[in-house]
């Protein structure tokens, strides 16, 4: 007999995990944010070329496991739910490693009338709340995507072209990954982010990186006065990414266009185009209230809290075990 049947997380960590989930719920109850549960299975799927959905079949129809509960939650918002939150298990193909498990717990919430900075304020409050139970006072910093690149690499990520980014990598002795598409500006920005920007974030505090390039808007609205910028933000602890949030795009036509473009990109890259969520588009047409939303990886937050070196240390059983 081996020890393979045993859980990865210690009982002590599982108790911290339970306490964190309780304090998240208490936080939202106190703020009158409604807890909801939405389907894991959906006939449509996310079109983002960087995400792969698990697929299954039912009644001769393809179904996808959600990679985040975003689309159904937005349908609730459009239906007049008001502020809502959800703690959901989400699924992503091809992601397993120190900071990744193919299924993981996501806390996602939406606040009506908040812009992305107001939501960042609330995230700070939530994290302070969770950490206070463990007598830790966390610190926070905020920096724009553009400023972070300027500070670390002396380059403007919005104005530079691929040849300037390539030059910048060479000047800073940054390795160029095998298989890098040298003409893909977003791939360059992503690489410089992982190789140089994120590793520079302080390990002793949380860092919000906000106002991403419009090409990486995902589901965020663009800045009204500078269309090179999208109101998307991410939260990091050290270089570990914890959350992604948007001042949400509410324009149905622009959303449809982004879905179609992403599917086109998927096909160019040899990936299958995904069935677009037409009901989400209908909901946007009916009217999504002005809001901001964010998704936080609960497991990663626990890794930070317990100083775990591997995601398997904070979940009872990692996938496949």
């Amino acid at each position, binding site marked *: 007999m081996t020890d393979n049947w045993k859980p990865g997380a210690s009982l002590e960590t599982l108790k911290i995990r339970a306490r964190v989930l309780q304090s998240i719920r208490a936080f939202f109850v106190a703020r009158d944010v409604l807890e909801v549960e939405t389907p894991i299975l959906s006939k449509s799927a996310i079109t983002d070329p960087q995400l792969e959905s698990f697929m299954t079949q039912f009644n001769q129809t393809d179904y996808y496991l959600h990679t985040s509960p975003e689309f159904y939650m937005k349908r609730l918002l459009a239906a007049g739910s008001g502020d809502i939150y959800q703690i959901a298990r989400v699924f992503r193909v091809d992601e397993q*490693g120190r900071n990744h498990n193919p299924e993981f717990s996501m806390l996602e919430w939406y606040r009506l009338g908040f812009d992305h900075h107001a939501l960042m304020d609330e995230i700070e409050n939530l994290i302070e709340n969770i950490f206070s139970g463990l007598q830790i006072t966390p610190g926070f910093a905020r920096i724009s995507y553009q400023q972070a690149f300027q500070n670390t690499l002396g380059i403007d990520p919005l104005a530079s072209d691929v040849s300037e980014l390539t030059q910048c990598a060479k000047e800073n002795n940054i390795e160029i990954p095998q*298989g890098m598409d040298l003409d893909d500006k977003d791939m360059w920005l992503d690489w410089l*982010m992982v190789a140089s920007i994120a590793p520079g974030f302080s390990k002793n505090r949380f860092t919000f990186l906000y106002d991403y390039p419009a090409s990486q808007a*995902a589901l965020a609205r663009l800045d009204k006065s500078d269309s090179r910028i999208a109101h998307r933000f991410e939260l990091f602890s050290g270089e570990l990414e914890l959350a992604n949030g948007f001042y949400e795009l509410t324009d149905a036509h622009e959303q449809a266009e982004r879905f179609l473009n992403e599917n086109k990109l998927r096909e160019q890259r040899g990936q299958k185009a995904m069935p677009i969520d037409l009901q989400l588009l209908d909901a946007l047409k009916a009217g999504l209230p002005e809001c901001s939303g964010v998704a936080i990886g609960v497991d990663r937050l626990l890794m930070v809290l317990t100083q775990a070196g591997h995601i398997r240390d904070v979940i009872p059983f990692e996938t496949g075990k």
Partner: protein
Amino acid sequence: MASYSTNEFKGGLKLLLDGDPCSIIENELVKPGKGQAFNRVKLRNFKTGRVLEKTFKSGESVEAADVVDVDMEFSYNDGEFWYFMDPNTFEQVAAPDSALTESGKWIKPQELCTVTLWDGVPLVVTPPNFVELAVAETDPGLKGDTAQGGTKPATLESGAIVKVPLFIEIGEVLKVDTRSGEYVSRVKE
């Protein structure tokens, strides 16, 4: 040519990089939140023994190295090559000194070693974790001194020198850990 995609990367996988066979020590998926994922990989180059780090765009395919581990019996050393035989197929291979480095001093004829072959050519010879070897040379033992913690050097029949307790005599068979190079115990005959 066989190849592996980055999503198959894991410790122990053998890849061909710039013509050299390498083994993955560590593979880490790094992702800038949403966006392109990369695999940051630590590898050991079998030919140079050196550890290197390399990053791949996730989804890339990398040529596999035809590297296999075979359990083979050490036959003899003719001063130039070390000869090993597969006890199942009786196939023989000759390994150069460079394939043994530290391993040579731990093995005697008939010892079953792990021979790492690349396209059939021995790259690395790894001795068993524990070997049993007789003491060829050491200072006289101190009778009755079994409790004291002192040690002395002893030369084993295979040529390795290990620190042993003071009571060990010439001719005694010892169990040794080849990974740490440390004495474990006497072997009761």
